[in-house]
């Protein structure tokens, strides 16, 4: 795809039935590219299939698909500090900022259906905590509570569990917890481990 090496987690998604699209961050801008199918909605004016989703000069990074694939959430520091924004997947609308309670809100991951939640890393002290925002009600709550620094949340394919990286026991390790905050389990124990993701 000619994408930067730092897009570690490919964000593939079928959009309808005619386009298989990968979402990425390139040079700190969010882009999407259809790599399969012939949906004309994913063709650009030149017949290409690369769509630039964000065009702001500041940093836009870590995009995630909404469950239906019609929206994209991402992190941007366009307001002066990194915060989470949502934009229509056609890239034409104005991004809407959805976080404001945290000095740093970053690395959103949107749940699969039937849930409609965004988990993200929020900083209000020395480290990050995982926070979950219900996109239907607009209400947010903390999933972790100040033990170490907690980041890189990843919803399981069912949406019922969240994996994340935490320094709560020293080195950075991967943990899994239920979406209600119960049933915390440590997954890795050796070395340092980052950016978990689930098989499908």
């Amino acid at each position, binding site marked *: 795809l000619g994408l*930067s*090496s*730092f897009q*570690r987690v490919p964000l593939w998604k079928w959009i309808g039935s005619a386009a298989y699209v990968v979402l990425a*961050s390139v*040079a*700190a801008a969010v882009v999407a590219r259809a790599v399969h199918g012939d949906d004309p909605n994913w063709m650009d004016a030149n017949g290409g299939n690369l769509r630039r989703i964000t065009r702001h000069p500041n*940093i*836009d*990074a*870590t995009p995630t698909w909404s469950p239906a694939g019609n929206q994209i959430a991402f*992190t941007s*520091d366009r307001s002066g*500090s*990194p915060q989470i924004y949502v934009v229509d997947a056609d890239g034409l609308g104005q991004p809407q900022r959805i976080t404001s309670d945290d000095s*740093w809100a*970053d*690395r959103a991951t949107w749940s699969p259906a039937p849930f409609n939640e965004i988990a993200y*890393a929020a*900083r209000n002290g020395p480290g*990050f905590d995982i926070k979950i925002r219900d996109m239907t009600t607009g209400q947010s709550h903390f999933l972790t509570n100040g033990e170490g620094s907690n*980041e*890189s949340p990843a919803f*399981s394919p069912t949406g019922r*569990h969240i*994996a994340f*990286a935490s320094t709560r026991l020293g080195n950075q390790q*991967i943990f*899994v917890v*239920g979406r209600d905050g119960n*049933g915390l*389990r440590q*997954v*890795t124990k050796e*070395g340092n*481990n*980052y*950016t*978990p*993701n*689930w*098989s499908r």
Partner: protein
Amino acid sequence: MPRHRFTVLFLAIALAAGGAGSACKKKSPPIARPTPPPPPDDMTANRPPAPPEPVTEAPPVAVPPEPSVSSADMGSLDEINKKGILAPVFFEFDSAEMSSEGQAVLAKNAETMKQYPTWVVSVEGHCDERGTAEYNLALGERRALSVRQYLVSLGIAAERLRTVSYGKEFPFDPGHSETSWSRNRRANFVVTAK
């Protein structure tokens, strides 16, 4: 949660870790290369003042272009990089904008690269530990690209400059103070071919 779900997740993480490990082996981890200390100020301060030079009108002379120099006798790439000939550029928190000091450093680096026209240089973007791993990779890339763009504007061929972001993963200073963070917010230079 069923046990097989954990097994699947663990395998996914293990595979990812294995891939990252092999990727790291391909590119050597950055090495902190401290800049040689400048000569003490008092080396010249204690010297008696030089007698005044007689004033002569020098005819204007055209300055010849800087001759290119071979780096064949400068040792291996590791030895060149350990000398810290290309100085790092530092950034403010969550910023990829270059300061006037950074621009001055890049002007010197550009002159050095013009002296050694066969050098190919990797510009590494680094960040302090305060952002998330993923955001810092984007920020580090933005810093490296910013430096690359400025060097190109100074006449360095773009194909001699490669960029990579290490985010917060290879801090030069492992501390957790502003002093440490300021040292880690940098673009670092590594000569990869000579």
